[in-house]
């Protein structure tokens, strides 16, 4: 006990050095904590996302490669009612995809072919490609009573190009639709879309079926039975894909750079702190060699010396961790967002909100720009991870501090314990 107490007191023997060392240690601890917090935050966001998106099952015509692929086979509209009656189904979202004739007045690079019309169940959230949610910024969303009515919610870019306003008419396949709402999204692709009720879409495009159906299960536990039931019922005519199965792999793929950067940062800051503890204790032992000899002469054993210097190293490192926690509390959030900005996935600056809240994520490569949309969706869904000082983080910092003190102080303390008293007392 007394050995530990002396170790604690000795931390303050050389105050200016201790202050400098603590400064370095606490900075390293703070950085390490930021990395840890960012990584953890991403992990929990991913789990949250998995919970949300993981309940989605995609039903599409057999062989269709993604919902953008124009296939001859479509899903019979009656499937919507049938699936809705199945066990564990929370919601069924039919999708009809059609294209509008090219626009005039496009910017270079803006392709008219991308002007998509989505036929959706009126009353639900508007999501582009089943992924990115858009926000109705003027007028209103489609409502259940809109079923069968020629009403449309159009993207802001279309409104701009065609100089359309609420109440105006837009022609889709030569049929006039009344503009009831305008939706906004930073993604250019989304700003070029139109939403209409799906039954009207079937009619307008002369289709006898749906492009795709998204089924949301009541909970993740229903996903597997539901998928089995869907396969049993519709067999070879449809492909049934549960989002949860390939979601994690894709998420991890697109977050790999951020995760590996934060791991590297964590390892580097731990290493730096370890070297500082080691170096400081090494100097301390050399400086106090004579005193160690005296302590041994008056009865201190190797164990006493080991404990005294070991505890000095641990206290020093622990103090660094505690001050680091304080620094983290003050500047952790700012540092965390900087780290995320530096290492974040390359994404368009403004993005549709709420990807992953309902609907599937488009498969990269299924459509031109699909990968980009997917990554953009990921970055947006993950968002900027908010870091806060939690008890778990504090406990890790404390444990880390102790471990680092033990690791960095071990060799110098052993060196101290092995000093030969006669030799070091002789040195002047």
């Amino acid at each position: 006990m007394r050995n530990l107490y002396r170790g604690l007191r000795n931390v303050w023997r050389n105050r200016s050095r201790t202050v400098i060392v603590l400064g370095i240690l606490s900075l390293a601890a703070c950085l390490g904590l930021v990395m840890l917090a960012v990584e953890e935050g991403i992990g929990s966001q991913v789990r949250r996302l998995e919970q949300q998106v993981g309940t989605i099952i995609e039903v599409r015509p057999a062989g269709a490669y993604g919902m953008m692929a124009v296939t001859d086979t479509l899903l019979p509209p009656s499937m919507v009612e049938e699936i809705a009656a199945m066990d564990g189904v929370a919601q069924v979202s039919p999708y009809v995809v059609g294209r509008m004739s090219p626009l005039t007045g496009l910017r270079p690079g803006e392709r008219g072919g991308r002007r998509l019309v989505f036929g959706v169940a009126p009353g639900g959230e508007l999501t582009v490609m089943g992924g990115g949610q858009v926000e109705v910024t003027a007028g209103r969303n489609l409502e259940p009573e809109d079923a069968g009515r020629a009403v449309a919610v159009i993207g802001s870019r279309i409104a701009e190009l065609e100089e359309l306003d609420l109440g105006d008419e837009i022609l889709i396949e030569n049929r006039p639709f009344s503009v009831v709402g305008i939706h906004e999204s930073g993604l250019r692709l989304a700003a070029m879309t139109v939403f209409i009720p799906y039954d009207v879409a079937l009619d307008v495009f002369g289709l006898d079926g749906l492009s795709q159906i998204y089924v949301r299960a009541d909970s993740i536990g229903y996903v597997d039975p539901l998928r089995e039931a869907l396969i049993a019922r519709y067999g070879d005519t449809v492909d049934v894909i549960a989002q949860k199965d390939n979601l994690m792999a894709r998420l991890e793929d697109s977050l790999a750079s951020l995760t590996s950067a934060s791991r590297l940062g964590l390892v580097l800051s731990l290493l730096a702190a370890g070297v500082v503890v080691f170096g400081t204790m090494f100097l301390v032992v050399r400086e106090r060699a004579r005193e160690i000899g005296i302590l041994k002469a008056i009865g201190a054993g190797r164990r006493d010396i080991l404990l005294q210097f070991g505890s000095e190293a641990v206290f020093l490192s622990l103090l660094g961790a505690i001050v680091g926690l304080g620094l983290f509390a003050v500047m952790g959030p700012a540092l965390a967002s900087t780290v995320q900005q530096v290492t974040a996935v390359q994404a368009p600056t403004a993005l549709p909100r709420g990807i992953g809240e309902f609907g599937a994520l488009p498969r990269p490569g299924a459509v031109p720009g699909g990968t980009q949309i997917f990554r953009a969706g990921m970055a947006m869904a993950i968002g900027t991870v908010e870091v806060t000082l939690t008890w778990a983080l504090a406990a890790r910092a404390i444990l880390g501090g102790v471990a680092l003190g033990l690791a960095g102080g071990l060799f110098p303390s052993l060196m101290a314990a092995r000093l030969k008293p006669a030799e070091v007392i002789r040195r002047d």
Partner: protein
Amino acid sequence: MTDKVITADRLTKSFRFAGQTVQALREVSFHVDRGSLTAIVGPSGSGKTTLVNLIGGLDNPTSGELWVDGVPVHELPESRLTDFRRRKVGFVFQFYNLIPNLSAIENVALPLEFQGVPRTRREERAAECLAMAGLPAERYRHPPGRLSGGEQQRVAVARALVHGPAIVLADEPTGNLDSAMSATIMDLLRALARDHGTTVVVVTHDHQLARRADRTLNIEDGKVRGVHERRTEGSTDCG
């Protein structure tokens, strides 16, 4: 009763340094009576420090035998030497060598800490020894840096005897003090030997001081050149 607390028999110590061998002690034989004050004198480099380091178990002899209070010190491995120092030996050094960030009384209590003596008992005993060494009570809580050289050496003497060792070894304890203070410290050590039956061995350059000892061991070039007994005023060659 002539109980021999230290017996050295052809004690030899050589150092190897930079490929050369230095013979610091060459077959030194002598003995020290329990409760006596022995002075070791001799020119610089004659091997005085080497000798007290061996007696105190700070170093191992190259050859020969050394018995201290019934313990064969020459045979002890490092782990047993620690125990030997802890129980049997008290040290006083030339430069006081107190721990700078511990108070006087904490410094004195250190050897008891290493023995595992409980706190209150330690403090009592340390205060007792400081009083015996003549440090004013109001200075017990002061750090060494606030004490004069003489006061520091009083603290060092108290620290050397706090655990009731069989022998107290002092290597030039007065080397840094003026003559009056030197005499005081020497008297303190002598009183210690006389009143507590502690055996004291003092290395000194000062022949005036050596004269206060019961016996003087004269060392030259790693050998005992002569032993001077105060009572008999005689001198015997022994080497």
